[in-house]
């Protein structure tokens, strides 16, 4: 999985591209979020449009990232969920845990 990082309106956006799955994608996501927290960044938007597959480890990593950032007093939100990623979060009732937005503009305005 590739991760591109950019800043907009004081929010750091991580654009994920590929599979958030056990062994690689989940580790890459964990390291990216840990890096942001190490830099003192706590407004994080995860852009998921180009995610093709997410498994239970990837879901667990999203939950972990959300909890860690929240516990630091920050906010981690999700935007542009592909239908199958949405389904995965929906059936484990996590869609209501995360703040999820359809567009980047809406997400940025919410921080």
């Amino acid at each position, binding site marked *: 999985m590739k991760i591109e990082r950019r800043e907009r309106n004081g929010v750091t956006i991580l654009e994920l591209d590929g599979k958030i799955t056990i062994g690689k994608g989940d580790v890459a996501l964990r390291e990216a979020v840990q890096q942001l927290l190490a830099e003192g960044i706590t407004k994080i938007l995860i852009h998921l449009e180009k995610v093709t597959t997410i*498994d*239970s480890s990837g879901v667990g990593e999203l*939950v972990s990232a959300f909890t860690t950032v929240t516990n630091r007093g920050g906010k981690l939100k999700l935007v542009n969920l592909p239908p*199958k990623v949405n*389904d995965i979060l929906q059936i*484990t009732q996590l869609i209501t845990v995360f703040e999820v937005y359809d567009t980047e503009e809406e997400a940025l305005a919410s921080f």
Partner: protein
Amino acid sequence: MERQLNLTVSSRFENIELVQAAIDEAVAGRGADDDVRHWIGLAVREAVANAIKHGNRLDPAKRVEVAVEVDDGTVVIRVTDEGEGFEPEEVRDPLAPENRMRTNGRGIFYMRRFMDEVSYDFGPGGGTIVTLRKRISADGDGQDQQEELS
């Protein structure tokens, strides 16, 4: 016409890609559309990941065997590890409020959600065999799942 496939891989996460690709090829063109193939692929990923991580404890010397049969519009996948087994009834419910924010424990739930049937057997000398079954023909039961999971 029946189609069979047998694979044996070492306990490394990168082999999950190999298994998923091989099974996807086995079910492609047998009545499974892209959505059904996606959910079967995810269930297989969870089964093999569990075999590697929880069954074989990430020991690369231990093997995971995967057997696939596609026949009469149904795919049956058996994933066997060399672990000590577990008690399926003791697996936590990931939908319970106290478990919802856990970072693990959703794999079996997803498998059951994506497939028509998931069962476990335990070999006399150890090892867990998880059997995943799903109807993949266009007019079969698999359509119910497809409509719910777009």
